[in-house]
């Protein structure tokens, strides 16, 4: 127990004794974890952002003038069955007239003897879909239906957004993978450098008869303390940043960043595992 307390104390004291190397180490752990965290948050919110964008996609379908409400209802039911269609709203001729009157405060029937507005339908596209959403086939299918006069859509814009999303997702995955590799290397090398700078201590401990585990323990504990410290700082910054960004976004749009905070646990785990791996590898060079 005395030995354990001593080793535990040494792990903590070493943080103070080697302030500069510890600062370098904690700072680099902090930096890479912030980058990893930002990627985590970006990944989590890309899907939410694209769903938000898709909720704004609208296809307006106008029916021929001669169509009855019943026929229009039938076509709307057909449209609803097309894969990729999330919801449909039928606007009958009478409803269109009411909308016109309420928006423009004019009664068309006063100066026209008939209702010139066609029946129409607003089509919303599905939001939840992994990967690229193709709207062109949906539009083509609607256009080919009997009774459909014209279709208003933002097909080009939607296609652009979808392609951008697809490329972004691929880019994000590549960057995340590269960052993870760099993270492992940076944290593990920083810890290695810290241990190399303490060759004298290791030599002295060997000479006085310290066992390998006695020599290893303070380094491993120090590595864990450093990674927990770096991860705590990174978690604090990320939490604060998400909070700040959401306050800002809340004033501009209904879209806010959504974060599953359990990922912070992963951040700590990554840091600790990498530091354990790094310190064990580095110390094994001196303690065989």
């Amino acid at each position, binding site marked *: 127990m*005395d030995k354990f307390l001593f080793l535990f104390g040494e792990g903590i004291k070493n943080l103070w004794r080697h302030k500069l190397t510890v600062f370098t180490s904690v700072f680099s752990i902090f930096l890479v974890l912030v980058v990893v965290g930002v990627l985590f948050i970006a990944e989590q919110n890309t899907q939410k952002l694209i769903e938000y964008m898709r909720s704004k996609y609208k296809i307006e379908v106008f029916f021929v003038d001669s169509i009855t409400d019943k026929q229009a209802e039938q076509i709307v039911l057909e449209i609803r069955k097309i894969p990729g269609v999330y919801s449909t709203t039928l606007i009958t001729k009478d409803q269109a007239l009411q909308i016109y009157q309420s928006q423009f405060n004019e009664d068309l029937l006063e100066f026209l003897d008939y209702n010139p507005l066609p029946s129409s339908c607003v089509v919303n596209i599905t939001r939840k879909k992994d990967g690229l959403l193709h709207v062109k086939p949906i539009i083509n299918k609607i256009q080919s239906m009997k009774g459909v006069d014209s279709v208003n859509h933002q097909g080009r814009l939607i296609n652009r957004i979808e392609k951008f999303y697809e490329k972004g997702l691929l880019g994000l995955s590549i960057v995340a993978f590269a960052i993870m590799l760099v993270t492992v290397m940076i944290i593990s090398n920083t810890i290695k450098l810290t241990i190399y700078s303490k060759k*004298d201590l290791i030599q*002295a401990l060997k000479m*006085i008869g310290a066992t390998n585990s006695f020599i290893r323990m303070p380094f491993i504990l120090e590595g864990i303390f450093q990674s927990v410290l770096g991860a705590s700082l990174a978690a604090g910054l990320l939490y604060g940043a998400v909070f700040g960004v959401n306050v800002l976004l809340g004033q501009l749009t209904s879209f806010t960043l959504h974060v599953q905070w359990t990922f912070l646990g992963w951040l700590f785990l990554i840091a600790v595992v990498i530091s354990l791996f790094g310190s064990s590898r580095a110390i094994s060079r001196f303690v065989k």
Partner: protein
Amino acid sequence: MIKLENASYSFKKGFSLSNIDLTIDDGEFVFLIGPTGSGKTTMLRLIYMNILPDSGVVRVGKYSSNSIKKRKIPQLRRSIGMISQDYHLLADRNLFENVALPLHVIGYSKSDMGDLVIEMIEEVGLTGKENHLPDELSGGEQQRACLARALIKDPDIILADEPTGNLDPVTAFDLVKLLEKVNAEGTTVFMASHNYSLIKSRNHRIVEIHGGKLRS
């Protein structure tokens, strides 16, 4: 007892120790003399089993190089106090903490070690410097601190590798006298040096090594 029986060791770069036969009895004080690069440090490393012989056997107390398990080597080293020319004191710990380090390794509690450390610091003449860092001590004081660290665990053997190498003649002589005092209390001392003038007047056995071979 330290016993080297036909012990040989070769480094990859070419230098080797060849067929060393040497016995040092318990409580003996032996000087190992030879020029720089003659193999003195290698011989000491063989004794504290930092390296193991390619052939032959090294026996230290109950431990033998041909049967010792890796995990037992720290136990052997706990019965040996090492002092060297480079001191190997920890620069970021004060004298008290440096001297106390071996007791932590053995598993002493903090409350038990205080008096022992103070006593040992007093024995090597460094009382009042407990809170000094190594670089606040002179070369001679650092070497005495090193000796205190070696002695605190009450070792059976002291191995001294050129302990006077960085000291002026007077301080070097004081250190040898200190080692003799330790030896008089029953500790075996094996001290390597290339300073013949320092040791010739002392009444101890001298073993000479040259080019990796012992001379009688």
